[in-house]
């Protein structure tokens, strides 16, 4: 009765969060005295496919079908349920991203398995099966007991360390059964953001608020992001004004992110903004107002004008890079 992990890919490669997920599943499997099976759906290159093994999976199941090149909730959740049944899995883990949120509820109903989303740590107890999750959009944690035989978890991003291990996993193909009902939605067009670090996958995020004063002042934010291999983000008014694209808006009504470093430039730190970024490991705030609430959430702060401070930060990063 292994722990089953849905390992998601992007452009033929596993996402970083898939490895975080396998590491997490491996620790649960250790607690339960069982193994980890990873499930890949769609087109993943052969030498990429074995990678979940390096994070603790002992078996990798591959499902390939031309109809599965885009996410189709019904078909994907049907595959995951079928694999879970054929493997006899009693714990299934997903990432708590768009895909995990789309699939886990359907699998939950198919298998009558209790679902807890946004889990932040390993189970604190196996019997009763108890996990901790974020509630009130990051303002508190809850301990939740799952009462069904099969348990489904979605893991909050960046809440578990990626651990590499030596493990040679076997790869198996699986042929699921479909019905016409599994394909009632159709992807007609795709717009991909390429060549940029994905906001939800980024280790470092450089973000700007209304204090930046206008879209013409974003150059330093973009330059710093490029130097740090970071993603760019913004507060809600900034995307509402159209200064920045909507995908960049973080907070309660935008994206919820948890990078290692979040650099907030000219952002006041309203509670709804913090709800999306407060799980970052470190927060740096640059604001000219020493009373701005962002300083209560930040680890490092500079009271000053972004227009003056940002170029100096860029210089200092360049110097650091030149030294190392």
């Amino acid at each position, binding site marked *: 009765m292994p722990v089953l992990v849905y390992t998601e890919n992007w452009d033929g490669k596993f996402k970083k969060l898939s490895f975080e997920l396998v590491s997490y599943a491996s620790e649960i499997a250790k607690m339960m005295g069982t193994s980890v099976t990873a499930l890949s759906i769609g087109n993943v290159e052969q030498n990429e496919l074995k990678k979940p093994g390096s994070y603790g999976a002992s078996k990798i199941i591959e499902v390939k079908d031309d109809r599965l090149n885009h996410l189709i909730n019904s078909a994907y959740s049907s595959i995951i349920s079928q694999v879970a049944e054929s493997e006899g899995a009693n714990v299934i883990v997903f990432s708590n991203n768009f895909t995990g949120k789309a699939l886990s509820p359907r699998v939950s109903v198919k298998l009558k398995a209790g679902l807890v989303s946004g889990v932040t740590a390993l189970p604190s107890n196996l019997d009763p099966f108890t996990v901790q999750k974020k509630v009130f959009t990051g303002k508190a*944690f809850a301990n939740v007991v799952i009462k069904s035989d099969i348990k489904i978890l979605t893991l909050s991003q960046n809440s578990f360390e990626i651990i590499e291990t030596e493990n040679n996993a076997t790869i198996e193909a699986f042929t699921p059964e479909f019905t016409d009902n599994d394909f009632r939605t159709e992807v007609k067009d795709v717009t991909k953001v390429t060549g940029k670090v994905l906001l939800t996958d980024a280790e470092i995020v450089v973000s700007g608020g209304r204090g930046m004063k206008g879209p013409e002042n974003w150059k330093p934010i973009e330059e710093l992001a490029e130097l740090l291999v970071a993603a760019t983000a913004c507060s809600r008014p900034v995307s509402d004004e159209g200064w920045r694209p909507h995908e960049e808006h973080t907070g309660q009504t935008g994206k919820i992110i948890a990078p290692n470093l979040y650099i907030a430039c000219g952002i006041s730190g309203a509670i709804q903004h913090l709800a999306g970024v407060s799980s970052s490991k470190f927060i740096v705030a640059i604001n000219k107002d020493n009373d701005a609430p962002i300083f209560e959430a930040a680890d490092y702060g500079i009271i000053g004008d972004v227009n003056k401070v940002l170029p100096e*930060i860029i210089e200092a990063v360049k110097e650091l890079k030149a030294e190392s």
Partner: protein
Amino acid sequence: MKILICISNVPDTTTKIRFVNDNTAFDTNGVQWIINPWDELALTRALELKETTGGAIEKVTVINVGTKDTEPTLRKALAIGADDAIRVNTEPKDAFFVAYHISEAVKNEGYDMIIAGIDSSDYNGAAVGGMLAEFLGVPSVSSVSSIDVEGDNVSLKREIDGGSEVIGTQLPFVAIIQKGVAIEPRIPSMRGIMMARKKPLNVVEPVEADALTEFVSYELPQAKAACKMVDPENVKELINLLHTEAKVI
């Protein structure tokens, strides 16, 4: 086309979160209850569509699984412009329990488009919409950021981690929405509030249903250490700290 919107009743987003009874229950003392922000956007978009598609949309219904205490929230949805409301009269236990109740209440009512939010701002279950689609045996389109209707055709935009997709779907279906479907939520007008009093709010009694999870206790996050202030005249120090102390760059 008939539209159903699932409404979750949640504490106002600025509520100070506290727990009582040895941290086993949320302190509802003095809490202001609102329509979950996503559900408010869904309702706003449904009403826009009803007004702009020339009769393509017959009716917009809102539904909540909750006790009598949630009626003001449903009345607010009626005041904003929903045609009628359904309340399934039971305390919501978990997402599985809620989704099952909604599916039982509406499975024979012929809704073509059912909309739920991506999550409730209280327990962040991120589950009811997808579960409901599975109970009803209909397709779901998730992380939807725009909804358009032309005759019987629905076109949706779905956000993915690195971009977006345009999706077509057969009816009926469940749309699980997030930001983008509408920009500013509508607020009730005086006339809307008056009219809401006369609109139907149908109470449906609960059925036998399971909850598969149970919230047993709560914790508040640990207080953060004080922010380390760096002299604005010595920005280099910040980069040093990030490099040698935090070790993040």
